[in-house]
């Protein structure tokens, strides 16, 4: 009897040790170790994973800001990225779905600007795409602010629970997706048809040059967001609001203005993220919802409210997704379920994420 008691006790001790290890430095070390193995053992998948992670990062940073400052799970984030991507597509090609097939609706598009489609450097796109991306980002900012005024602010005034916000944003997500389907139907689309130029990386890996662009965009924007949050007055106020909205109000901070800035940054990032996503893969309406799980996994893994966490989390999710399907026993269809597994594990073991504050 006593023997089993001590054995059980020892088991509990081990369990506690593991728990402490994981909630402390253990988890980051674990990821580092796994990452190293993946880099060496599955380099191709690793590199693709980094690109996937870059796209996810662009979305996750906006998501983590909205989640941290506005305190709700923005279920419309994925579909917002898609809406942005389609707006850019429209600005570039002027194409919508007509009676049965595509028709060009706009008499003039960005592609008509001189040299707009001429590829920059070794990319597949010209400055036209960049302009389209800027327009999409601007429109998404406006859309977000309008939606906030119409929907989320009245709900905030009523002190609605997180559940109501979640359902509302889900309704918005569905409305966005339906809008896309109404105007552009479900055909897969490309910004630039045809073969795209590639680049050779060290270790003999070949990727699309566009993908290099996506990675750098994600890195630069993550760093930029970090700088804004930690070195500017506005950013500090945003973090203050994420910590304690009522105290921010009491200190005289114009919380409404901060909320608008949050949507501005979020909208801008969503615009860029959507276009990058479409650049990386094909443009399809369903992607919006499919992305939600990896986006949330990245955000929660990194720690809500932390842009550097969102970046790292997105990288982990992206790399894990790509590497996991190279393991023999996991079939490719399960790729997005990998994000789900990561999510559940994080919620159970370390809900504050990698960079979240210990409460």
């Amino acid at each position, binding site marked *: 009897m006593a023997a089993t008691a001590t054995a059980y006790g020892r088991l509990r001790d081990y369990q506690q040790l593991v728990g402490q290890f994981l909630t402390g430095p253990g988890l980051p070390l674990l990821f580092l170790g796994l990452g190293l193995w993946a880099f060496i053992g599955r380099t191709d998948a690793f590199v693709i994973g980094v690109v996937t992670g870059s796209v996810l990062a662009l979305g996750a940073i906006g998501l983590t800001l909205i989640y941290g400052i506005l305190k709700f799970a923005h279920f419309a984030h994925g579909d917002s990225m898609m809406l942005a991507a389609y707006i850019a597509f429209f600005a570039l090609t002027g194409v919508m779905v007509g009676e049965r097939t595509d028709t060009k609706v706009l008499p003039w598009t960005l592609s008509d600007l001189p040299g707009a489609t001429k590829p920059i450097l070794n990319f597949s796109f010209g400055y036209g795409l960049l302009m389209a991306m800027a327009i999409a980002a601007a429109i998404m900012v406006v859309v977000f602010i309008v939606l906030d005024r119409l929907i989320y602010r009245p709900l905030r005034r*009523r002190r609605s629970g997180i559940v109501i916000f979640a359902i509302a944003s889900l309704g*918005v997500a*569905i409305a966005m997706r339906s809008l896309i*389907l*109404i105007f552009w139907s479900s055909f897969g689309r490309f910004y630039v048809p045809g073969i795209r130029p590639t680049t050779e990386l060290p270790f003999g890996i070949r990727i699309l040059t566009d993908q290099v662009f996506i990675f750098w965009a994600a890195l630069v924007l993550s760093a930029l967001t970090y700088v804004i949050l930690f070195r500017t007055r506005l950013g500090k106020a945003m973090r203050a609001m994420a910590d304690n909205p009522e105290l921010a109000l009491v200190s005289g901070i114009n919380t409404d203005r901060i909320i608008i800035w949050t949507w501005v940054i979020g909208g801008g990032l969503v615009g860029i993220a959507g276009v990058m996503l479409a650049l990386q893969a094909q443009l399809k309406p369903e992607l919006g919802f499919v992305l939600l799980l990896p986006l949330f996994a990245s955000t929660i893994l990194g720690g809500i409210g932390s842009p550097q966490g969102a970046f790292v989390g997105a990288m982990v999710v992206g790399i894990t997704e790509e590497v996991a399907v190279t393991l023999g026993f996991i079939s490719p269809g399960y790729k997005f*379920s990998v994000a*789900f597994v990561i999510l559940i594990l994080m919620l159970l073991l370390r809900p504050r994420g990698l960079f979240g504050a210990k409460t």
Partner: protein
Amino acid sequence: MKLPAVLGGGALKGQIKGERLITPLTVLAITAAVVLMPAERSNWDVGGVISFLTFFATFVAIYGIFTLGLNVQWGYTGVFNFGVMAFFLVGANAAAIITKPPASTEYVRYVGGFGDKLAFIPVLDSEQWLPFLFGIAGAAIFAGLLAFLLSIPTLRLREDYLAIATIGVAEFLRRVTIEERGLVNGTRGLTGIPRPLGELVSTGDYKFVMLAIAVATLVLVYVAIERGIRSPWGRVLRALREDELTTAASGKNVFAFKSQGFVVGAMIMGIGGAIYAYANAAISPDTFTHFFGTFIFWAMLMVGGSGNNKGAILGAYVVWGFWTITLQLQGYTSEHPGPLGFALPDAVQSRIFFIRDFVLGTLIVVVLLLRPQGLLPEERRVSIWVERHAKHLGGARPPPAEQAESPPD
């Protein structure tokens, strides 16, 4: 002057003129459309209209079952389940593989297939009803089991985390049914699901039998829930939803109750899935999407009135009615115009499904903003004594001590 709620102005109660009329008007409008449109389109063919309405009512009953299950989970237990699709899927597939005969060809592969073996009580044509009872039982058990397994890691999570987790679970399960082709025949799905009591009547009249089955199940589920809610167990559940902290302080094992409520709701959804499988006779992974398997039931519950069983059924009626009406509207093309020459422009006609989804998404938001209590508001009955002695308490509750910043939500 109060600003409209949409622009962030004051309280909402009584804001809309004739608020009391909204519920009866909505029901009237839906009923009228559902009856008159097919009537007009089929040139007043009574048989056709009756057939149409029978199918309509059958599915209203089935979706009502799902919404009732969701109400148990959310309205009564306070568990935010965004993975309803998972239980729908499990229930429907379980019922299908239990009642179907064994997989016979090499192109169709699935586990189970006990159909012919289950009719072992040689009474009353038992192969007409016994396997199907097993199917329903199996659906309920598997759905309940899934819910139980899920509850262990996830119920302690915060509500929004739970929502995300349940979405993930639902998606994962759907993936499994697609990838593991030997399980339920992969993407091709299961067809030829037998029909309960199918041999009793002619094929033409079977729809009435199915309707009866669906409605009977709905009624049974409704009665069971109503009894359950009034029981001591149900009272703890409701107390839990109102104030978890206090309920825990009075010694109730919060987790156990939450888990039970979650499981019961899931079982009901499983039963709904089983009846759906029988009614539809075919299911596949495409049947279960997040929109159609989860969101639509939330829409039904929100529209009808969360926390209210009658509201759940009413919501199913209204939302499915709307859904059906759009299907009918699609028929009004320029070649076959409706009354007064009503015809949808081609551009609208070809996209009517997307427009319908758009309206549904927007409708949910509008309901949340303008009428969050739904068509039939929740019946808040703590006790009659409290109601008599605390008229002025209204909706707000005072903070337990002065320290509270604002009333608990």
